[in-house]
């Protein structure tokens, strides 16, 4: 303790200058880290009635003592406690494991002495446009002024501009996610003027690849995936939402509209399909299809996820802890959490396996085709009316005849009872399963009967008509399937039975099919009960009814002929009869009806293929759910009733905003919202510089990191809003800055003074994200597909990755172009994510993820060295080197190097690659089989005239090039 006091007596070196202690930068973080758990917003855990998250709390009088007395640390209880030697007095208490450093204690003391200036948490205060500081160095735009001001303070200076080739590669990767081609880079190198740079930036911003690159960023936030999560983790069709995001970025949809449509597109006046499609954003939540789950439990979990995701994505707030208790650090109460929850608690989705509500979301091409077919059908319909008029008399006669015979018969369809099974019956050695008798085939079907070995009939719901059933027990013997058929009148029934082995089929004890794999059966049934029996020696089974007739006419026609319904349905039924008559009983009409049916079938087929996407849909007024606070976060423990609302620390809902998701969305993008523009600007900055101005992109609250350049962030945020919330302009502003264009070279001085480049005295340089690594390798190889939009694809993946329980889904490797789509389109199954992507830190999209933490691991090296995807890329690159450069190995290798990293290699870089080539060539000359494998597996046969030995040796070189630090890095 003596030592401590001695320390305090000295002026603290860092504070020696006249610079006052900065509350926001220096004091609040100390309070947040050490004090607020007990003296914060949570009144349940608050000790001694003291709160230090608010100015009034810190300065309040508590029976004569005050925690902070401005200007007088001696009178301040807080000061007395943090320097106390008695463990009972000392703050923070020892059992919290928290401890102030001598430096922190000194800072607090100085701050009190300086009058304890208090400032509300910076990010909760309104954004104001700061004045642009002057700079002594040349600037490209105002970004640089702000950065230079800090550099000057830190005793640093800006770096020179990066060389043009490097810069072209950097900006191309950043704006489009794809490397610049050597031609693009060289063109810029010839004219590296500001004007040429701007033209390059403008061009990159208009490529479709721009939307794909930034959609990737957004999809992490949207927790986009192609499966539902949890146990079965079945596929979910969501890709049309991804299309929507790509298009929104490419059209530079203003951020407010982008927000409104995703949060509440369904509630917008005159919402069109695209607005509703956007709401799939919040249908990316997980659904649990596991048997025996409480759907309400997982619906509630999804709604909470929507609250958390919304606040994280738009406002950088972490509300997770307020689910269970008051937020300890930020001024958000548990009640306020559930007020936000109430906005989202009114949608129709309810953790159903069907993922309802869904909506067919045709692609633009599908919509056009649908329109065309609609017109064709209308035309054919009209033609048919004319024929029908001519045939009216003949039809009337036919109807009269049929009715006179059948008018007393029921036209109800036959009832097919549930399938039952019994078995497996072991087949005695040396006997045939089909001819051996086991019991069920000898007696009339009776589901109560038991057989040798105690085998009983069991009802099998899982066997559904029209679906292939896998009856695994049949692998151990013979099994029987049986069901009852109840015919309401005399019938002709047609059905098909399919198996993967031989089988036998009986109807009422009469064999109707035997020793066949497929049987199409037609049986005449009298009114009453009938029995169907199938004997199966293998496990695959499918049954479907093909048709049912009464009096020689299809049942639906018979029903129409017999029905006496009211007008509307009569018209429909009349149409059914008319078309049937013209097709089956009238020569002139037949062709016409067949053409119409074909067109209709075409349209039906088209529409059935429309991707059906889960969407947000508000419950009808009478079905709205009351919202209650969940005590300790437990949805079964209901607290007080809650109405929708926003946290009091922020601006209120806009005056005319409804208390719905739409109102909430408008509140998010209200210019008075202090966080939305800041968070967006920070996110875009972080993507381009590798780290945000607020490093904790996910937390702008009091626990988050303070901004390194607060004025710069506010300037970017206001510029963003003034530019009509244009994200393209935001990106352009950042990449046009001199700061962005700097060389990334790390001098020993820079390394010593600013290892993490937080003051930005050099340009950004960091390892590319998972998708970019893949895209860049495929691009260098000339394999990359530039197709935009569409369903997810399944590129090469090792065997056995997908083995989720209760699931028969298979990874079916995409063929042709689809094997080489951008990483963005790779199918994401949450429980089995694509292995190379997660190795490179891509999230598995189970929840909203704001920041990918970059790791650097040996498993990553194994991916880019050995993953067949990257071997194929190396083979592709090697073939380009051989084909596009008809020259000695030296030039070929230099060409490959340029294709990968845009610049030409130095002599010293070329030498090791040449030596490798020579060594491998010699080796492959002696080992032709190895050469063939290295040159062709998995990419396929060599093009005519290409030498396998050269191709194999060059593949080894290309494999090295695609693993260069420079290749894997955006620098």
């Amino acid at each position, binding site marked *: 303790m003596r030592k401590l006091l001695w320390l305090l007596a000295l002026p603290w070196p860092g504070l020696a200058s006249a610079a006052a202690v900065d509350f926001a930068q220096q004091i609040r973080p100390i309070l947040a880290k050490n004090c607020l758990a007990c003296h914060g917003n949570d009144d349940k855990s608050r000790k001694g009635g003291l709160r230090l998250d608010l100015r009034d709390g810190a300065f309040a009088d508590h029976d004569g003592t005050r925690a902070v007395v401005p200007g007088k640390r001696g009178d301040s209880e807080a000061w007395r406690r943090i320097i106390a030697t008695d463990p009972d007095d000392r703050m923070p208490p020892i059992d919290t494991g928290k401890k102030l450093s001598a430096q922190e204690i000194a800072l607090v003391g100085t701050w009190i002495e300086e009058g304890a200036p208090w400032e509300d948490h910076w990010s909760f205060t309104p954004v104001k446009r700061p004045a642009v500081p002057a700079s002594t160095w040349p600037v490209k735009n105002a970004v640089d002024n702000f950065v230079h001001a800090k550099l000057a303070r830190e005793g640093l200076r800006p770096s020179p501009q990066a060389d043009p080739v490097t810069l072209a590669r950097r900006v191309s990767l950043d704006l489009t996610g794809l490397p610049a081609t050597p031609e693009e880079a060289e063109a810029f190198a010839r004219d590296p003027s500001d004007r040429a740079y701007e033209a390059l930036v403008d061009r990159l911003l208009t490529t479709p690849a721009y939307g794909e690159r930034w959609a990737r960023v957004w999809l992490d936030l949207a927790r986009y995936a192609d499966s539902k999560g949890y146990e079965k983790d079945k596929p979910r069709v969501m890709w049309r939402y991804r299309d929507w995001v790509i298009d929104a970025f490419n059209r530079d949809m203003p951020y407010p509209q982008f927000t409104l449509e995703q949060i509440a597109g369904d509630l917008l006046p005159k919402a069109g399909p695209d607005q509703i499609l956007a709401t799939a954003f919040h249908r990316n939540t997980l659904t649990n299809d596991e048997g025996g789950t409480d759907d309400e439990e997982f619906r509630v979990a999804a709604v909470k996820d929507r609250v958390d995701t919304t606040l994280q994505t738009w406002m950088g707030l972490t509300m997770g802890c307020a689910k269970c208790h008051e937020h300890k650090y930020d001024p958000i109460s548990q009640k306020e959490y559930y007020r936000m929850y109430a906005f989202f608690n009114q949608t129709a989705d309810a953790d159903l396996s069907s993922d309802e509500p869904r909506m067919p979301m045709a692609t633009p091409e599908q919509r056009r085709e649908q329109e065309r077919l609609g017109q064709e059908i209308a035309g054919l319909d009209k033609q048919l009316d004319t024929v029908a008029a001519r045939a009216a008399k003949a039809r009337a006669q036919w109807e009269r005849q049929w009715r006179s015979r059948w008018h007393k018969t029921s036209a109800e369809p036959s009832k097919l009872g549930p399938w039952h099974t019994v078995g497996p019956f072991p087949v005695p050695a040396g006997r045939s399963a089909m001819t051996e008798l086991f019991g069920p085939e000898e007696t009339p079907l009776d589901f109560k009967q038991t057989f040798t070995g105690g085998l009983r009939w069991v009802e099998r719901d899982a066997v559904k008509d029209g679906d292939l059933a896998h009856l695994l027990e049949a692998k151990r013997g013979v099994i029987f399937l049986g069901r009852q058929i109840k015919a309401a009148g005399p019938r002709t029934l047609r059905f098909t039975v399919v198996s993967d082995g031989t089988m036998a089929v009986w109807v009422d004890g009469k064999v109707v099919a035997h020793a066949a794999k497929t049987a199409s059966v037609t049986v005449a049934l009298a009114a009453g009960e009938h029995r169907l029996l199938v004997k199966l020696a293998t496990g695959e089974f499918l049954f479907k009814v093909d048709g049912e007739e009464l009096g020689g006419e299809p049942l639906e026609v018979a029903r129409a002929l017999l029905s006496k319904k009211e007008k509307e349905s009569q018209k429909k039924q009349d149409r059914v009869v008319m078309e049937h008559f013209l097709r089956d009983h009238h020569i002139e009409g037949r062709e016409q009806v067949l053409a119409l049916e074909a067109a209709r079938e075409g349209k039906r087929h088209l529409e059935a293929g429309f991707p059906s996407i889960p969407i947000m849909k508000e419950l009808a007024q009478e079905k709205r759910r009351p919202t209650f606070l969940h005590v300790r976060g437990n949805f079964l423990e209901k607290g007080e009733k809650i109405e929708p609302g926003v946290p009091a620390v922020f601006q209120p809902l806009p005056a005319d905003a409804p208390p719905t998701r739409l109102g909430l969305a408008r509140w998010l993008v209200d210019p008075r919202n202090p966080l939305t523009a800041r968070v967006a600007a920070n996110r875009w900055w972080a993507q381009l510089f590798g780290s945000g101005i607020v490093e904790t992109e996910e937390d702008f609250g009091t626990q988050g990191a303070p901004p390194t350049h607060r004025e710069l962030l506010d300037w970017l945020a206001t510029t963003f809003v003034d530019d009509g919330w244009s994200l393209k302009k935001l990106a352009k502003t950042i990449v046009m800055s001199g700061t962005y264009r700097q060389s990334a070279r790390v001098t020993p001085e820079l390394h010593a003074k600013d290892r993490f480049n937080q003051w930005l005295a050099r340009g950004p340089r960091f390892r590319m994200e998972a998708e970019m690594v893949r895209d860049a390798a495929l691009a260098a190889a000339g394999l990359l597909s530039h197709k935009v939009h569409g369903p997810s694809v399944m590129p090469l993946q090792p065997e056995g990755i997908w083995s989720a329980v209760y699931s028969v889904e298979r990874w079916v490797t995409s063929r042709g172009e689809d094997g080489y789509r951008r990483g963005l389109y790779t199918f994401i199954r949450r429980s089995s994510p694509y292995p190379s992507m997660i190795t490179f830190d891509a999230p598995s999209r189970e929840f909203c993820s704001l920041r990918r933490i970059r790791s650097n*691991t040996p498993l990553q090296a194994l991916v880019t060295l050995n993953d067949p995807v990257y071997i194929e890329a190396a083979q592709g690159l090697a073939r380009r080197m051989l084909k596009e450069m008809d020259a000695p190995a030296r030039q070929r290798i230099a060409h490959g190097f340029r294709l990968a990293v845009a610049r030409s290699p130095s002599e010293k870089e070329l030498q090791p690659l040449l030596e490798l080539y020579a060594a491998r060539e010699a080796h492959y000359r002696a080992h032709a089989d190895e050469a063939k494998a290295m040159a062709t597996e998995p990419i396929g046969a060599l093009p005519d005239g290409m030498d396998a030995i050269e191709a194999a040796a060059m593949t080894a070189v290309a494999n090295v090039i695609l693993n260069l630090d*420079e290749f894997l890095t955006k620098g």
Partner: protein
Amino acid sequence: MKDEICKAITRRHFCGGGLGAIAAATMMGAARASGRTDPMAPKRPPKPAKAKNVIWLHMAGAPSQLDLWDYKPKLQQLTGKPCPKEFLEGKRFAFIRGVPNMLGTMFKFGKHGQSGTELSELLPNFRKVIDDVAIIKSMSTDEFNHAPAQLYMVTGTPRFGGASVGSWATYGLGSENENLPGYVVLLSGSKTPDAGKSLWSSGYLPSIHQGVQCRTQGDPVLYASNPKGLDRAGRRQTLDALRAVNEQHLAALGDPETMTRMAQYELAYRMQASVPEVMDISREPKHVLDMYGAMPGFRTEADDADDPRTLYKGTDAAFANNCLLARRLVERGVRFVNLYDWGWDHHGISPGESIDQTLPIKAQQIDRAMTGLIQDLKQRGLFDSTLIVWASEFGRTPMQQNGPKQPFIGRDHHKEAFTVWMAGGGIKGGQTIGETDDLGYYIVKDKLHIHDLQATVLHLLGLDPWQLHYPFQGLDQRLIGPEGKATIPKRLLA
């Protein structure tokens, strides 16, 4: 400002910051002597440790504790009688509806070992080591569906996004062998467990701490094999060229991250040799293989079936092989080995998921294997430094699962009470902890929660379960949950 450690993790590349000099040393081959400072470097535990390594055996699907460990004579008498109302009111079950009947076990129990511990006839081999293990009959959880309950058991949270216990172990302690992953996962039962690969996710912890699935078919670690046409010597040539070119770039740009990456490639090269070596159990002598019932190269047609359960055989060696691998891994200093065996969900609705048909088969699959694991660790002197946990996500009901279509005997999910056992480093063997009521429904003595189990594991590794945390989403995330309600049962400890 945040402290340096936090910064090194969050700012920039997470292995990157400041590793330059050391990474370079590693690369130049001067490596080990000076020690590693990467996140997987072995760290001294903050508190005295009783165990260095953990082998965690998880039976996914939840075996019936009432048919393996927890014998209830009273329940035998009640078999077939309706379940008393007080056990049903206000309860949520996964599948049981209405009033089910009670179900005593159909298997014989006996007392074994000096401790006289009760054990089902389904585990005849396990008698031999019964005095080495502590049986806990009073474990409980809050979740009753597989995926959430499995996540809860190993990550401390029933939702996705948490860090698994193995990740916490390497986050706190690193790993001894830098040529092998620090946290290895092995699967059997022909399926991935219900919650999928999220069970060994590092969640909010840096991704280097995620479990690495070592596979017994195909590449033992994904992408460890060089492409066809490039042997190990050829790979060395390519890596030499890669290093030479990277050195040029490093000289030009001076980014320490480049050095780190170069070191990672060298480490990858060593892993390519060390992983196949450790995964090759054919190198084990026959008497060791027999101890576990292991069979090198074992494959079963169940692996390719959509539903493998009806194809299970008692002699399937997949789990036994994994137990043997677990020993080989901890022997080489791997910190945490996690085995998942799927196929224990015995509701009685099909022959592949029943107590009468499937449980005896599954019990046979694990009986000799887990016995052999304990015996083998003992004979090698590894038992005292290796903590073994045998657990599942919950237990099964004392009632027979009812329903119109129940051709087989089964039980529903039960979160109130189930059995786990622990053995090895720091555990006092030869004892039974906890008791359930006469029906085996509720715990009546020494109730433990899965957070207590998690706390005990960390404690035995020398980590403080309350202090070991990671800041994420405004909370100090911990394995034992944000409330930190956990106790370490003193009786359990040696």
